[in-house]
């Protein structure tokens, strides 16, 4: 289609101008064989030269460049992948290390806590024992004091009453009667003072 159109246009133009410039037109210069040989000669020379230089010197260089780039890119991709794997391994290593150390730290902490708790327990037990002992002693003392206190109080009461009476009336009353009264009173009030 395209070919036909071009040919038609070409022919019509030729026809038009061979009419218009019929006098001076020499027809198509392409069909004038005067320089055909020269054109063939120079075509072979220049194209041959071009072909030899291109295929011997220039094209191998370009293909070399392309290959070089390809191989370099492949190499880079390879190293990148290797490094990626390496870094992933490193990350795994790091994670396991962190986990291990976390566990260790927890263990240490637990152990220390246990130890401290044990220590505290021991010390507390010891102190409790001591306290119990003290309490027992104190209780004993208290019991003893309880036992001995009425007598002492009575004695003190007797003495003080004797002194008081002496001061008040200026007469000495024998102790036995006073103590009898005191004892009588203390017996009456025993529940008041030592009520448990």
């Amino acid at each position: 289609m395209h070919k036909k159109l071009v040919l038609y246009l070409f022919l019509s133009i030729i026809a038009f101008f061979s009419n218009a410039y019929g006098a001076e037109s020499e027809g198509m210069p392409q069909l004038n064989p005067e320089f055909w040989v020269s054109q063939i000669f120079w075509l072979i020379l220049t194209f041959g030269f071009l072909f030899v230089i291109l295929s011997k010197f220039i094209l191998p260089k370009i293909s070399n460049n392309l290959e070089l780039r390809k191989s370099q890119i492949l190499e880079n991709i390879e190293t990148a992948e290797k490094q990626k794997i390496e870094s992933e391994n490193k990350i795994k290593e790091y994670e396991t290390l962190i986990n291990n150390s976390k566990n260790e730290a927890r263990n240490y902490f637990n152990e220390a806590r246990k130890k401290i708790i044990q220590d505290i327990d021991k010390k507390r037990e010891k102190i409790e024992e001591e306290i119990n002992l003290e309490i027992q002693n104190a209780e004993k003392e208290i019991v003893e004091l309880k036992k001995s206190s009425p007598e002492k109080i009575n004695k003190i009461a007797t003495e003080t009453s004797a002194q008081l009476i002496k001061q008040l009336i200026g007469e000495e009353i024998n102790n036995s009667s006073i103590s009898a009264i005191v004892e009588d009173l203390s017996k009456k009030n025993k529940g008041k003072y030592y009520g448990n």
Partner: protein
Amino acid sequence: MATNPMHQFNVYRIGPEIKIDQIDISFTNASLFMVISSLFILIIFNLGSVKKNIIPNKIQLLAELSYSFISKMISDTAGSKGKPYFGFIFSLFMFVLFCNMLGMLPYAFTVTSHIIVTFVLAAFIFIGVTVIGFLKHGLGYLKLFVPSGVPIVLLPLIVIIEVISYLSRPISLSVRLFANMMAGHTMMKVFGGFVISLGLVGGWLPLGFSVALTGLEILVAFLQAYVFAILTCIYLNDALNLHH
């Protein structure tokens, strides 16, 4: 009048007449543009291949893109067997492309608008492909003219048609390029002449046409170089991989 649109295709001698055994091989304007095209290609691709940058600069990118473009074209049409002919196809494509493109410059001469140039190229390709075919397949190359799966009654006719189509390859290949280039340049010249003859009043329309045609012609210049190269690849494919 200089407005003869065929005037631009005239070949004239530059410098002295050179004769070897009565054969005129003088340097002409056609020769000049062949030399310029070749030098242009060599300079560009030399600049594009000198440096070995991993990230290419512009001219290196141009050279490498052209390389992979042609390389892909060959491997797509002729397969891996076409690789040894890469240098030739590459030179052919670049030569035709640069001749076409340089012809687009004002006052420049279009080498490929001459039937003799395109015919020599096409004839060389034709002979080369035929030789390669016979070297690769021996007389088995003649099977190219006998397509498989054709009824025996039709076979003589088909063979004749195949032979004619095979023999007309150099003609169709050369005339396609030559006619395209000549028609385009002639039309541009005609419209250019109209701009002058119609003057300020009516010259704008042909001027617009001229501008549009220039764009079209640049497209055609590339397309025809591509077609020339790819048809060469297809012929080469026939010779290398006998499909019939």
